[in-house]
């Protein structure tokens, strides 16, 4: 089995799906000749031509909106938004059109499309190349939302997203694009949307995270292990619909829940998971569900690393839970 980086896995998934299904096409800013600013679509225009790997004008509304029409008419578009931060000029297309088309038409029309976007901080991107807007998508009925953290997942989930009959927002933590390589099968495999991965079994505390923050979460877990603890680590992978079952059964077992995400804190995915777990497991918890999140500030260039949950911050919160 070959090893791949996350970006290579994305590229492979796109390639395979385009080969498999003629209706699959890519569109976005610089996805064609340049192969994307992160090279996610490298080589694909050469292979499939400019009609199926299409450079668009600089307009996120045009990209997402055209994807809606392409999908409604029978194509399987995969749109790229160059950075998650730039989804906002096109977000009405995502919210008013893509997310609601099936519903408003009573099931007559639908928009099976994927909107891919690099997300998150850690690459010295400042305000507009670092944000993690997944809560906006998850709060909007009609969208599925995936945030990957490994090459293997990226491939299996992107392929599943492309075949899904609903609009899927597919978020790729850019700081992980080339961070690690792992073995990724070259033959056909799909991963189920909505299913979390238990990265580590344990019984003392449940750490729930996803996306870029999985790095620090896993590091923190290692340090805990070194200190003789047994944390259970869950990677949500899909944040809408998120895998409540897996989280609840883990938290019921450990009695302690810590949710970690680099997105801003207020009204976040972390808030949702914490609120739900406290609602459903009140009696079985040994301590209150806690959150370690990004701060409620715009993303500051100078504090590119400190803005996000650090290992220290995660460990401090875990200690609070364990000492409770």
């Amino acid at each position, binding site marked *: 089995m070959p090893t791949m980086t996350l970006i290579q896995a994305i590229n492979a998934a796109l390639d395979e799906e385009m080969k498999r299904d003629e209706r699959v*096409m890519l569109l976005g800013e610089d996805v064609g000749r340049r192969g994307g600013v992160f090279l996610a679509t490298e080589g694909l225009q050469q292979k499939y031509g400019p*009609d*199926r790997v*299409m450079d*668009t*004008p600089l*307009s996120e*509304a*045009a990209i*997402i*909106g*055209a*994807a*809606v*029409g*392409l*999908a*409604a*008419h*029978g*194509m399987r*578009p995969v749109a790229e938004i160059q950075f998650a931060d730039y989804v906002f*000029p096109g977000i*009405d*297309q995502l919210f*008013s*059109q893509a997310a*609601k*088309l*099936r*519903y*408003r*038409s*009573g*099931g*007559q*029309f*639908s928009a099976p499309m994927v909107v891919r976007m690099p997300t998150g901080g850690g690459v010295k991107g400042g305000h507009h190349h670092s944000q993690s807007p997944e809560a906006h998508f998850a709060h909007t*009925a*009609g969208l*599925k939302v995936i945030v990957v953290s490994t090459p293997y997942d990226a491939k299996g989930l992107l392929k599943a997203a492309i075949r*899904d*009959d*609903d609009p899927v927002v597919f978020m790729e933590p850019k700081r992980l694009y080339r961070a690690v390589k792992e073995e990724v099968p070259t033959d056909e495999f799909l991963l189920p949307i*909505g299913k979390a991965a238990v990265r580590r079994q344990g019984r003392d505390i449940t750490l729930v995270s996803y996306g870029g923050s999985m790095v620090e979460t896993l590091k923190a877990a290692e340090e805990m292990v070194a200190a003789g603890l047994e944390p259970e680590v869950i990677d949500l992978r899909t944040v809408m*619909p998120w895998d*409540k*079952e897996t989280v609840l059964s883990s938290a019921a077992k450990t009695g302690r829940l810590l949710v970690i995400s680099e997105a801003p804190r207020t009204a976040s995915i972390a808030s949702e998971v914490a609120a739900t777990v406290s609602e459903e497991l009140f009696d079985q918890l040994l301590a209150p569900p806690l959150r370690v999140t990004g701060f409620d500030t715009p993303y500051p260039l100078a504090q590119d690393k400190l803005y996000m949950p650090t290992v220290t911050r995660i460990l401090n919160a875990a200690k609070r839970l364990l000492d409770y």
Partner: protein
Amino acid sequence: MVQEKVRFQPFSSEPIRLVDEQGRWIAPFEHGLPPEQLRRFYRDMLAARLLDEKLVILIRTGKTSFIAPHAGHEAAQVGIAHALRKGHDWLFPYYRDMGLVLALGVPLVEIFGQTLGNAADPAKARQMPSHPGSKALNVFTVCSAIASHIPPATGAALSMKLRRTGQVAVCTFGDGATSEGDWHAGLNFAAVQQAPAVFVCENNRYAISVNISKQTASENIAIKAQAYGIPGYYVDGLDVLASYFVMQEAIERARAGEGPSLVELVVHRFGAHSSADDDSRYRSREELATERQQDPLPRYQRFLEQQGLWDAQWANELRLEISKALEAALQEALQAGEPDPLEMFDDVYAARPWHLEEQRRLLAEELQS
């Protein structure tokens, strides 16, 4: 498209007009249309007008919660409907297009079902009235958000081009819509890709209360096509034949692979913006009276008279027949029951995820108790 078939010049300083106020054919070419089709235009315009009147009654009698009257837009809408290939081409309409979707063949029962918001609405009564749609007829369900359907129309046209389906995407909107960013984004992308789309502005010179002078400083709407390197046609939308022929040329041009165009059909809005509006707050009754003098129906009647195709008895019977059909469809729609509340949780996704199952269960329990 063969050059000799090109009849119209884009960017004219006066609106393109084929029939004058007196009903005279003033174009430099023969219309060449059979009497049947000429009468059909009248029939559809009359049906549109009578539907409008019926909708007004539904509002007055409290049977529906909202309407957006289309009276004054009939010639434009019927012209559009006849220019596209029904059930083959796609229409991306907006909320004032009831006359258009009717002429296109959306069944009256569905129209009334949507208006009443009951189980007769094929879209399950999820949107306000005046939001029709039909998968069967390729009518993309209306979305309230102004101009948000423009980029999807571009996308559908792109799909038609890529898959060589020979279809065209026709997308309608009002003058106000042209100020939205999505309008610009959609036209620009369509033009770059030479997608087979026709963008049609039903310009009634008002966006609710806002006069076009506060909407844009451009001479007219058609000239905005210059920004996209595509033709822009400035047309008298009270003239059903001008609307029809220009639309036809634009559509066939798109079908022939020559790219999109922008067609401006200048119309009047005889009613208020909607049943929620009181237009006397911002529009003088004199202005309205003058506009009503330019009603597209009598004008087209004069044309038919001049062509020797008018017959008072035929017209009376037509009116009766349409009225009956309207009433029958309305009654049928009225019979339909209320939608099942639990349908609320369907069609959010293709299948219900756990959280919607939970929420559905919560409501089901509440309804049972």
